[in-house]
Each structure stands twice: as C-alpha cells, then as structure tokens.
C-alpha cells in the first residue's frame, strides 16, 4: 500500500470533563482536523485500562490517543496522575510486543482548548501515517 493512500484508524479515549468538552468546542468552533479519529468518552483518563488499549490494537487500531485534564485539574482529583503512570508503563509493554510506543499518546487537553484538540489530532494522525499500518492488524487479518 502506498503511504499516501494509508488512512489510519485512530481510537481516542477522551475524559468527559476536559478533552471531550475540548473536542466538542473544536467542533462548535469548526476547527478542521482529520476524520481518522474515533472517539470514546470515558469519565476520566484514569478509567482507561491497559486492556482497552491492547484490545484497540488487537482489533485493528493503528494508534490510540488518550486525552485527560491538565495535571491538577482532574475532576476526580488524581485520575490523570494515575493515567500518566499507566500509559508510561503500557508504552513500554507495547514496545516489547513489537508495537511502536509512539502509537500510544497521552495528551492533556482542557475544555477550553478546542484549537489544541484539533492540532493534537492533526499531528498524531500525521505521525501514525508516517509509521504506517500497525503490523498487528495484518497479522490478525491473515
């Protein structure tokens, strides 16, 4: 497959209080971003279990974006700190599984940062396009 033809599938986990509201703002403000991301709303970035991320890759995602509140702003006080440690550890595990750790990204995006949400998605989509399809997908299909 030609690299330019490759349209990655990206799964986004967005926390209800910041990133999801940020995504909403991006939509209301009509900021353009690539349609490659599919969003799932979770109550907190700390709710995103490593299993969700592994499963996303297992069923064909090329990248996973986890969005949470900025440090100190978590609606549940400390969920995003937990997410930070989990994602860091999950990245290392992904590396050992032969999945590039860059395919998993954690970003802090607040409810007022619609612009930033669009930028992050644009940048992440570009990065995943350069990485190419996740090898796991071709493996499960074949």
């Amino acid at each position, binding site marked *: 497959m030609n690299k330019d033809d490759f349209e990655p599938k990206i799964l986004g986990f967005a926390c209800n209080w910041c990133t999801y509201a940020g995504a909403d703002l991006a939509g209301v403000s009509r900021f353009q971003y690539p349609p490659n991301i599919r969003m799932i709303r979770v109550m907190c970035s700390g709710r995103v*279990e*490593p*299993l969700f991320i*592994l*499963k996303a*890759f*297992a069923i064909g995602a090329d990248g996973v974006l986890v969005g949470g509140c900025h*440090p*100190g702003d978590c609606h549940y006080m*400390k969920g995003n*700190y*937990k997410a*930070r*440690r*989990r994602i*860091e*550890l*999950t990245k*290392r*595990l992904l590396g*050992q*599984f*032969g*999945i590039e750790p860059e395919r998993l990204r954690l970003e802090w995006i607040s409810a007022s940062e619609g612009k930033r949400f669009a930028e992050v998605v644009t940048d992440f989509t570009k990065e995943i396009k350069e990485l190419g399809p996740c*090898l*796991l997908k*071709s*493996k499960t299909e*074949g």
Partner: protein
Amino acid sequence: MAKKEKIKLAFYWAATCGGCDVATLDIEESILDVVNIADIVLWPVAMDFKYKDVEAMGPKSIDICLFNGAVRNSEHEEIAKMLREKSKVMVAFGSCACFGGIPGLANVANREQIFNVAYKETPSTVNPEFVIPMTECEVRGEKLTLPEFWDTVKTLDQTVDVDYYVPGCPPVVDRIKDAVGIIAKYAETGELPPKGTVVASDKSLCDECPRERAEERKLKWIYRPHEVKEVDPNKCLLDQGILCMGSATRGGCGARCPNVNMPCRGCMGPTAEIKDHGAAVLSMIASVLGLEGEESLSDKEIEELVSNIKDQLGTFYRFTLPSSLLKRVIIKANREK
C-alpha cells in the same frame, strides 16, 4: 464396594518440563486410589504405551485425559486432537496447557530466531554447518521425519475443546487431589462438574495469603526479591516494594510462594473476571507505584520509576503470554506468515 468396571485414564505431555507428571506422583498414597478406580492407557513419561495402541481405540473410549504442556509443534497438535477424539473428558492440566506457561514465553520470538540461538549463537554450540531440525531428511537412503516446529506456542484450548482446567506450575497436591476426587466421583456415579470448571479458588491469591496488608498502598520503588535485605515475614510483599502478582492471580495454591517470602509470579493464571493477566497486573502496579507525591513527580521521574520494572512483558505475562489478548510479539520479518 462392589467391583465396578474401571474407568480409563490417559496422561499426556506436550511442551512442558515434566513437573506436572512428577506433581501427579506427589499425591503419594492417593495414587493408589487412582489405580483402584482407573486403568491408565497412556502415560508417556511413566509407562510404555504406544500411540498406535491409543489410535486403535474407539472414539470416546478413554474417560478422562489429563493433558499437560503447551502445544508447540505438529506432534503435540496431532496427539491433542487424537486424545480429544478418544476421550470423553479433556482436562488442561498445569499452567502450560491452561495458558501456555513458561514455554509460551517463546512467543517473543519465532522459529528462525529460536533455532539461531539454540543451534548457532550459544557459546557452547559448535555447529559450523548450521544443522537444524528439519521435518524430513534422507540418511543413507532412508527418509527420517520429525514433527514441525511452529513459530507460535498455543494453549490446549486454542487447539482442541477443553472441559476442565487445573492451573498451577505445577498444580499443588491439594488441587490434584480435588481433580482425583472429580475422577473418583465420575467413576462412582458418572457425574461431572459443569464444563469449563477451573479446579482452584474463584478468589484471588490475596484472599488466602496470610500476610498483613497496609490500609493504603503506596509504592516508592520496585525491588527484586534478592535486592531486599530483610523481608518482613508478616507484611504484604507488595507493601515492601516486591512485585507480587497475587492480587490479579487466582488462588487455590495455598499461597505457597508468599509463605516462603517469594512473591507470586502468577502461575495460577488470572481470576475468572480478568481477560488479560498481564494488563491487569500492569494496571495494579501503575495504580500503587509512585502514588506518594504524585503531583510533584516529573515525567522523567515517572519514566525512572517505571523502567525500574525490568522486562515488563516477561514479568506480567510470565505464564500467560499465549492466552493473552495479543498472544505473541509481532516480528516484522514474520509479517506475512
């Protein structure tokens, strides 16, 4: 007791160390109960029966088959399928048959890489012509054959239908006795527990571990068991910074490792509610490691904390890699296979 017709019992070992067969003998005089009620028709490690003897038997003529070991080559698969056809009840016996076990860690590599290390790169190997096992070769006009070695290790239930599971590396004596009890009850009454029963506790290991745990868990650092000078014999190992997988691991082993100051390595596999053992342990560790003063930790400090766990995949999936969600490591050269 009225003399009843004895039931037929088969044991088999595939990719395994043989520890499960030895553990079967650890039940000591209970083994006499087994031979009292059962005729053994196949047990490669202890008795001289041939595959062709079993092949000659009719379908479902063996009552219970205790299969230990993971499925790693074509012979294992062939025998597993044959025994499934001949047996009424198939039991995955031991962690290798249940989850892949230690041989399942070979899923970090493929056949080519394994052969390279085993037959070429190890310092003690002298093999200039790089002779490796082949499925067929000719020696003085005779054709010799070997089973085909696979890239990926599979669990028993990924190969054939499995009725019961007896996890453990090896299964502890009490659980083997439970399994013998099931066999005895079947011989007596013909009754069996529901399909898919795991002969172990339904709760996690922590439930039966006698150590005291702290009210709130805060881990500042992860130590390997040998790095801790004095392990407190009464305090929870995790609270002492030793990575213990007990909270995500099925109980039923009687906490034999924590009782001797060794952390749980997860040989009993995940509890019934957990889909992926490694992911659950990872989640648990990430929740308690670096909890204290988490607000002030920089990204670099978190990296340091996390990198302190050596070999995440090998630690979290020590016994369960082939039965995990991702099953094996992706190897680029292996992509089209």
